[in-house]
């Protein structure tokens, strides 16, 4: 007996975001950190901040922490992103 059966997945891709243009250099740029606020993020971002400034000539690092580490970033953080050249979103698990 032949079965004709249906695809159970959404099939269509979710609304795709577009990648922002890649940066040629980090020198003089403003980099935003979006931390999920977990314990492990503290050392990670502290080290990354130092590395970006000292080794890559980053002009400014802006650190923000989500109010809920299980939910998307708060609106006020997302609104700030347009003022940054790049974002590092970090997990602390």
């Amino acid at each position, binding site marked *: *007996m*032949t*079965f*004709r*059966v*249906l*695809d*159970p*997945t*959404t*099939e*269509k891709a*979710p*609304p795709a975001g577009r990648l922002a243009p890649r940066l040629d250099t980090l020198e003089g740029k403003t980099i935003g950190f979006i931390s999920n606020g977990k314990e492990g993020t503290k050392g990670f971002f502290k080290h990354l901040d130092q590395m970006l400034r000292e080794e890559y000539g980053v002009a400014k690092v802006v650190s923000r922490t989500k109010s*809920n580490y*299980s*939910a*998307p970033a708060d609106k006020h953080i997302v609104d700030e992103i347009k003022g940054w050249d790049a974002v590092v979103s970090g997990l602390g*698990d």
Partner: protein
Amino acid sequence: MQLASKTYDANDISAVQELYHSSGWTDGLPIVPPTADAVQACLEWAMMPPDQLIGIEPVRGLAITAEKLAINAVMAGCLPMHFPVVVTAWMAMMQDEFLMHGATASTGGCAVLVVLNGPIRLELGANGTFNALGNSDRATAVIGRAVRLCLINLMDVRPGVIDRSTLGHPGKYSYCLAEDEEDSSWLPLHEQRGVERAASAVTVMAAGAPRQIMNEWTTKPEEILETFAAEMRANLRHYSIHPGNYALIIPKQLREHLQAAGWTKTDIATFIHERARIHRREWAEVGKGAVVRDRGDSVYPAMESPDQLLVIAAGGPAGGFGAVIPPWLGNKSHAVTLPLGVCIDCEPPK
């Protein structure tokens, strides 16, 4: 009725199983082949056209249609009469306060607990007595499984993909129970949470595994409930101090003592709210001294307020047992109760 999903031809039932397993579309158990006839029967029962938008998943913007829910419901073993419950559960899960993405992706590994109330339980033969949290009956088994298969296939909540659970728990196969309203003098859960008693309703909660308690040696409500509260304190110590929705499952033997003493669900929740709390310094007793810091005197209640406790009458008639079902991670997700839609003068879909 025209379905939009891509179709596949399989030579026999084994080929169907291998197609779905090898595509990552199952929970590891065999599925019922989702043929157009079976899927259309679900949609007709619910009086929904295939492209009816049930909701948009809030984080990734995924459109959830009736057709896709029905395909997964059939795969789980649902009959058409089970399908409206699956739809309502998903509508509840897509409310912002449920935080479906976080709850289903988290390393915390919770499952979606689905509680059925109202006349639909009797129509479906959902059993709130023997083995209420286990394989109690067909309806709760397939509804709970359908909720999980929809997560797997519609949101990519597959282990190691969106599902990042460290451990998970057995409720992730199916975690659905019906309240035993007939053998209880308490308000049913849905009425307690603001839905008309005469309506049928579905409550969803991002939930850890049940923690079973036993106290057969007293009839005093305070002593019975102290055992439940102690289990909640253990959860606060061993798992998480975040307050949120806890569920208490209270079977008949213990329920009768509480009801004979005139205790309502509200009385129970008020008592539990007072008793289920710990000091942060207690974490030092269970190996978590490093995070007590200078806040040892801070007090952490299991719930922010008594109304966060879901008290559910369910379980077999004998045994001084009960269960505490803890939240995934406190208030990050809130339980949601929705009535089953009732359509007056609806036209069946074309």
